[in-house]
């Protein structure tokens, strides 16, 4: 389950967020901000994608680096939200 979320989140980030010249990969725990991968419009795209793909609703108050600033954190967050809303698929 988590593995499936992880695959999707990783491919979303690799496909949509742009790597600068000095980087070709991203580890699960690296900060997306520090890697220069995400800016304030990028985060809104990410939220829209996650809401649609995983049928979840992301509250403003959840939009924190603790939940979104690495692949690992995003996966954990999505899994947690889905667990509290089991009807979503």
């Amino acid at each position, binding site marked *: 389950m988590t593995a499936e979320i992880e695959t999707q989140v990783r491919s979303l980030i690799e496909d949509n967020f742009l790597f*600068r010249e*000095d980087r070709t990969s991203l580890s699960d725990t690296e900060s997306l901000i520090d890697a*220069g991968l995400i800016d304030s419009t*990028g985060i809104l795209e990410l939220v829209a994608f996650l809401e649609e793909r995983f049928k979840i609703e992301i*509250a*403003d108050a959840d939009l924190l*680096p603790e939940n979104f600033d690495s692949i690992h954190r995003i996966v954990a967050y999505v899994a947690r939200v889905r667990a509290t809303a089991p009807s979503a698929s």
Partner: protein
Amino acid sequence: MRVEHFLRDSARTCRHKVALVAGERRLTFGDLDGASDRLAAALSRRGVSRGDRVVVFLDNCWEAVVAIFAVMKAGAVLCPINPSTKAAKLGWLLDHCRASAMILQDRWAASAKAALAQAHCVKLTIMVGELDPTGFPDGIRFDDAIAGSAACPLEAPAGIDLDLAMLIYTSGSTGLPKGVMITHQNAAASATSVISYLHNTPDDIILNALPISFSYGLYQVLMAAKVGATLILEKSFVFPHSILEKMGAERATGIPIVPSIASTILQMKSLRGAAFPHLRYITNAGAALPPSHAERLQELFPAARIYSMYGMTECHRGTWLPPDQLRSRPGSVGIAIPNTETYVVDGDGNRVAPGVVGELVIRGAHVMKGYWENPAATDSTLRPGPYSWEKVLYTGDLFRSDEQGYLYFVARKDDVIKTGAQKVSPKEVENAIYALPGILEVAVVGVPDPVLGMAIKAVVVPGPKADLTPRDVIRHCAKHLEDFMVPRIVEFRDGLPKTESGKIRRRQVASEISETER
């Protein structure tokens, strides 16, 4: 007054007061003064002299604030560079200003190393972070450079206030960046004027999430130091909820924003009004705040006075709208900042009547000295003014004024695109795209965008054998251009309109696009 005295004076009057909060770090004025003294001493010891350019390639971190004051204390010229700048351009910039030292974050060491290969002028590298700086020219770690508590040996004055304080690069319509030369006197004039209408005091707590490589962000650091206010430095506005929480927790009294930040705040679903009783003011610059956004911000922050302002790197700040005029003059960016003048002129430099569109001219002690080693660009921007003994700043921006002299921005005179408060030269983006094999023609234009004001769009004609997608073009740009210059939209076409001499009619492409989207 020289800019480093902003900090020195505050360190004398309020040594133990918190000057800077950056993440978990809190530095008093005494801490900041001491650390910047030690870094200045390290710069001097290692060969940085009066007038030398020192590139600061850092994001919004406490080390950057130390670096800003240290460079000036050493008598050198601060050259802040956007950390999303890629190797080739960074190399060009280092070489262009003949930087003698660079202070950089280890995270961007790979780009910096590639840049240094084409800029042999850099003789000293100071590395912020964990990375071992071995292999960089006279590389030392930032932490080592500021270690110890030795008193500063820099007793002699670093220079006078006519010396250059900063060299800030901005996009030029030719595609090559221009280095805006700001003296200490210019910076002090500008900071003093802005502080006077914002009524800043030592009780202020200013939350800044704007990049300090950008004049509007950088001046937050300078102004806070000048009045002895506390600066909360945030890296970006990516997580608006965190920023607003911090704003509440730290009891911020002022926040500078650009229109895209206003859009982000207004998109937050759960934000309730009146939650920030300490917030005394919000300033907006970079681009005009849409009147509806100004109104909604005022509802959300009823205690805050909203200042709509206009400026450019060449003078930092040009105009301000007194907050009590916000409702009665929607869309206006106001009047000249205190102790300066602004007026609108026609093509011959004559002042025009209210309501008539012309170019905005700015006159004051805050106006730059020119563009670094670029006399042609300097002469077309700094031109003779009303008196024979002076030059005034031609902004390149078209404005009109109302009967009472309040100014309204109309458009840029050239093709430079204003996106999310940054200026982008279409030529620079086009040049980057032409470097991609298989591209025949390209025109880069601005298209209206609800968040950015204008978004960058590239209209591209690929060659018959080019195996390219719009995504490839965007990826290529992301590798070579600063983040804010990367096109958001790429459209492929079979051809572009041209003049008889074969030059692409970029303006026609832009106007056709805006017609279709109307």
